[in-house]
């Protein structure tokens, strides 16, 4: 891959500025570099003061780190975004329908559109959920859909996150920061606002309450302040005006969930949980979980409390089922998928496995159930040794791995030590499902700050940018 093969978000191939970046380019030309430097430092300071940090797993010291923020926005023209948003709506609707189906009639499996064994034998499939009706039939109330743009300038879905997708607080804080530092940019053009996300989320959670509860008590459940996304949990709870609880704050009596308060026990109706299925209830899942609430699953199955997202959503965002999402869209909605999937090789499949092993240096190979950019091999950037070791891992358990062509992720100008330089980005919109599908325009843009790197995860040295949808 040559650098000129990448789609540059800001510049045309001939070096001219794309129209939707016009206002920003003008501003960049007319603003003294000292002022920009000054504002970049101010941004760092402000983020530090506000304490927007994330914790890094596996680092003994300095477990709190600042997420690097870049001031060059990722700008998307409104017309293009409107197409993307139609695609997101379609995709998430189908994924919710799929989840309802696999825990009820399993029509799609009977129709042979998705291999039944891949669902039933998937470790993320929760037999406990079979026959359980969840309010409104919604499973993934909050979905984070990772999008990338390939060299052809077209969006592809890289993966779906239907369990506890994080990062939305950065989206909100990035915008706040840009408006604070560069108000003139917002005066120069119409940029669609995003700060109503907490309202939309609260509305989604209220609508998810068990039937008959008019004024539900909603809480946000966090694993605690050692979790990497704790800042976000606290932030969202505060923005929505709901309690931020840990497992220790809740208990179950008579299939009803209560929180321990200074005024005695208070009934809880909706739990926006940011903790994995495995840990929510030591009675039902991992008995060693110190984070969960004993009996929570009983209350949930009795319909006395709503969990958002529902238990068992992981089966729909598993990377081994990702290749079947277009089939789900056709099956449930009778529509052609608007957003494209990246071609995926399933190592469980002999033909695919042989291809993958023969083309390791061209492919990105990942664990079907991994997340956060841990444990993946980026072929073009790997050494012979790394490939040999990874090959052994794949051969040991081929069904656990998938592979995709290394996409030529689009680049966006980004401030580096050597001035502005192109860096790879992706985009994660947050899609809310309740009565209808809702989202704020754009999403979280993540940027791989190391030159040439394709890994945008914050745990792997990625940064963030503000995302603008401009009319």
């Amino acid at each position, binding site marked *: 891959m040559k650098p000129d093969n990448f789609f540059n978000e800001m510049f045309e191939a001939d070096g001219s500025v794309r129209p939707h970046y016009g206002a920003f380019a003008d501003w960049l030309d007319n603003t003294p570099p000292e002022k920009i430097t000054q504002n970049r430092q101010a941004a760092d300071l402000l983020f*530090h*003061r*506000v*304490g927007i940090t994330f914790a890094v797993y596996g680092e003994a010291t300095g477990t709190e780190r600042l997420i690097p923020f870049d001031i060059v926005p990722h700008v998307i023209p409104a017309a293009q975004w409107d197409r993307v948003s139609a695609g997101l709506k379609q995709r998430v609707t189908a994924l919710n329908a799929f989840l309802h189906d696999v825990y009820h009639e399993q029509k799609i499996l009977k129709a042979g559109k998705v291999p039944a064994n891949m669902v039933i034998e998937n470790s993320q499939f929760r037999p406990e959920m079979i026959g359980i009706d969840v309010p409104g039939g919604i499973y993934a109330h909050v979905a984070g859909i990772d999008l990338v743009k390939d060299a052809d300038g077209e969006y592809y879905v890289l993966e779906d996150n239907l369990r506890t997708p994080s990062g939305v607080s950065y989206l909100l804080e990035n915008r706040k920061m840009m408006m604070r530092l560069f108000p003139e940019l917002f005066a120069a053009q119409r940029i669609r606002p995003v700060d109503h996300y907490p309202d939309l989320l609260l509305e989604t959670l209220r609508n998810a309450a068990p039937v008959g509860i008019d004024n539900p008590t909603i809480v*946000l459940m966090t694993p605690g*302040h050692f979790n990497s996304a*704790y*800042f976000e*949990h*606290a*932030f969202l*709870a*505060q923005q929505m005006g709901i*309690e*931020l*609880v*840990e497992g*220790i*704050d809740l*208990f179950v*009596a*008579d299939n*009803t969930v*209560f*929180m*321990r*308060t*200074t*005024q*005695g*026990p*208070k*009934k809880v109706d909706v739990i926006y949980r940011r903790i994995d299925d495995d840990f929510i209830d030591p009675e039902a899942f991992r008995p060693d979980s110190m984070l969960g609430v004993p009996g929570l699953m009983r209350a949930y199955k009795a319909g006395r409390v709503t969990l958002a997202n529902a238990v068992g959503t992981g089966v729909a965002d598993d990377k081994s089922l990702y290749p079947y999402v277009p089939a789900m869209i056709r099956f449930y909605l009778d529509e052609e998928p608007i957003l494209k999937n990246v071609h995926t090789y399933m190592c469980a499949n002999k033909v695919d496995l042989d291809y993958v092993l023969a083309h390791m240096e061209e492919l990105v190979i990942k664990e079907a159930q991994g997340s956060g950019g841990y444990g993946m091999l980026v072929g073009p950037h790997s050494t012979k040794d790394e490939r040999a070791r990874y090959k052994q891992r794949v051969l040991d358990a081929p069904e656990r791995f998938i592979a995709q062509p290394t996409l030529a992720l689009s680049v966006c100008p980004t401030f580096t030590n050597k001035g502005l330089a192109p860096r790879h980005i992706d985009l994660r919109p947050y899609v809310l499902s309740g009565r209808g599908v809702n989202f704020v325009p754009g999403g979280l843009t993540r940027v791989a700050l190391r030159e040439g790197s394709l890994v945008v995860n914050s745990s792997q040295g990625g940064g963030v940018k503000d995302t603008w949808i401009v009319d």
Partner: protein
Amino acid sequence: MLSRTASTLYWMSRNVERAENTARILDVAYRMSLLTKDPHLQDQEWFAPLNITGTLFPFSGRHSIVNSKEVLHFMALDSENPSSIYASAKQARENARAVRGTITSEMWEVLNGTWLEMQNMDEDRLYARGISSFFDWVKERSHLFRGVTFGTIRRDEAFQFHRIGTYMERADNTARMLDVKYHVLLPSVEDVGGAVDYYQWSAVLRSVSAFESYRKVYRDVITPLKVAELLVLRDDIPRSLRFCFQEIYEILCKVQNATSFEATRQAGEIYAALQFGTIQHIFSGGLHEYLTDFLDSTHRLGIEIDKSFFDATVPIPAAAKAA
């Protein structure tokens, strides 16, 4: 509100107040040591802050001599001393982080900013900055936190538990400060009522920001009896024991629940004694003895508050099921 949140708020404000009070205690020790010319006696003055805060024992476990440098380091900067200014600032920030969803972002920013600056503080920087200037900074950050809290937080339970923490810590501190004269070297006989005595009592007053109030209230020379009356029994001095307990008692009445009667009763008992006590009566039994009793009953009240509101491990009563 959540029991755990209430507890964290309570300790957050206790930690902020403790950092401020430790700065006040060290500041007065520092001022008193400047009054003494003899270097040996100067070092003796530094027993006082250790005695006042009850940390002589942990201190002597790690230091062999008592002097200004060692005590200042131990009480201001030592990360291993859980009641040092450093540790209090760190703990307050950790508490704030754990209840970030409950406090206002302005409150969080003050505590986070204080901690970031405190983190960079070491002995060299402390002396370069000037000892008093450092104490002023600590007090200013605490004032700022108080002001930001008052100016931004909703008057809900979070505010109440935050206030209880402040006043519990402050009452404890004022009692200890007033007892300081018991711990510092007694002035020689000819000094009683003399210049050193005067400076020591006025240092106590200044340490709790009550020097000007004393002048306004009494328009008289500084006497131990009146200083004690001002700091124990007056209802209009914001750091007096009575003032603190009026607040504690009233807040406990406001936040009461099914199990908190005993806490309210104890607070009411202490408050009533402060309301109707006389300074002559207190002095007849000995000020030091009175203050020791006071600290004990405040400590017991602290345990009772913990039991009534914060203890999340208590099995839930059957009544909960009906809720």
